[in-house]
């Protein structure tokens, strides 16, 4: 696909082949010919909306019952929500469970998006730049909004400039140094969030795709079905989870860093550990 794309001068991230959801995406105008005359399949958007609607339905249905002793779906939804609340409390600190909806929504959506690439005939929405960039921009805007809401606009700028209002007078030069660094760091967040997720999931899906093609070619040659892609699909479940966890943890850390009077050392430690996590996975 990459050679094909390079030949046409197209992005490697644009889906070259459709999924069985094309019957939905084509009437919606999501499948069209680009200026090079090649078909563009944006089935990922249909998958993304199907997954998001599914998550919303499961969540709403699961939280409708209010039994004192939860069972079935209610128990599952409450269990997941309690995990997110505890997760946010541990990373953000006391009262961090207020931000569980943001972190939980990011995790649930990204995890399900990632898993979709492992379903035969489907595609990971997170293997498309538009999806990951949209998620990263949403994360950026939400964390920025929380930072401004909690600190005020002047407080937020003061926060970015290394809190000169709380420094002794001879540290006047600190904002000059800190503000550009913090601004670059702030603006780099959505870019890093976007491309980390995209690279991991796109790469994983491409490898699975290629191994599946290899299995088909091998079957034609020796008439024995050998699922070469299977080990990587199993590993893909793990990486799907890890990438969703990394994204949502970073969102939680960005929220923690934008809150006033927080133990920044602690949150920075998490951030640095996670910045290196994708390289390992």
């Amino acid at each position, binding site marked *: 696909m990459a050679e094909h794309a390079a030949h046409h001068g197209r992005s490697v991230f644009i889906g070259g082949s459709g999924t069985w959801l094309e019957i939905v995406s084509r009437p919606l105008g999501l499948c069209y010919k680009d200026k090079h005359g090649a078909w563009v399949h944006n089935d990922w958007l249909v998958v993304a909306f199907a997954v998001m609607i599914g998550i919303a339905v499961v969540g709403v249905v699961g*939280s409708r019952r209010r039994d004192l002793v939860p069972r079935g779906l209610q128990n599952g939804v409450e269990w997941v*929500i*309690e995990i997110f609340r505890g997760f946010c409390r541990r990373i953000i600190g006391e009262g961090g469970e207020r931000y569980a*909806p943001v972190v939980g*929504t990011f995790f649930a959506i990204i995890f399900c998006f990632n898993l979709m690439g492992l379903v035969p005939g489907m595609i990971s929405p997170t293997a498309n*730049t*538009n999806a990951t960039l949209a998620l990263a*921009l949403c994360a950026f805007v939400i964390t920025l909004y929380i930072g401004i809401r909690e600190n005020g606009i002047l407080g937020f700028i003061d926060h970015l400039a290394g809190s000169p209002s709380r420094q002794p007078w001879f540290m006047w030069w600190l904002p000059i140094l800190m503000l550009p660094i913090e601004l670059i760091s702030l603006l780099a967040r959505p870019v890093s969030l976007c491309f980390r997720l995209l690279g991991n999931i796109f790469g994983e899906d491409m490898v699975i795709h290629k191994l599946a093609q290899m299995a088909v070619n091998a079957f034609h040659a020796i008439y024995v079905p050998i699922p070469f892609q299977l080990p990587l699909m199993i590993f893909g479940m793990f990486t799907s989870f890890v990438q969703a966890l990394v994204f949502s943890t970073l969102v939680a850390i960005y929220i923690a860093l934008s809150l006033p009077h927080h133990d920044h050392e602690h949150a920075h430690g998490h951030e640095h550990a996670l910045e290196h996590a994708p390289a390992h996975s």
Partner: protein
Amino acid sequence: MGAILEQLGIEPNLLLMMAVGFLIVYFILKKFVFGRVSQMFEERSQTIQQQLEAAAQQRLAMEKMRDDYEQRIAQIEEEARTRIAEAVKEAQAARDEMLAQAREQAERIVARGKEEIEREKHKALVEIRDQVAELAILTASKIIERELDEHTHRELIDDVIEKAIVRRGNGQH
């Protein structure tokens, strides 16, 4: 910039749709799932807290009731022990009295028996003496063949018997 976006496959329309879709789902989940469940957690926590407090109070009441019952049971046992002791004492007194009466009665019966024996013995002796006297008279009359008057005869016999009894008594002792 446009070329970079094109190379990355970024299309503003799709980007916007995805972002709006995400934000809609986020608001739905926040309002109808996380908000509702968090509120339910609070309510459940309060309910459980209240129930635990109520249970603790009930436990205290039960413990107090149990202490009262134990105290009452102890009192009842004490009363029962006292009554049993009194009953035992009364029974012992009654037994002693009955034993004393029985002993007295037995002694009385024994004394009466002894008197009876003495009386019978005396009677038997008198009879023996009479028979011996008659026998002696008969024997003597035949030996000496002489008639003695009744009164002399009797005196003689009595004298012999007395001597015989005295001799016998000396022989026994």
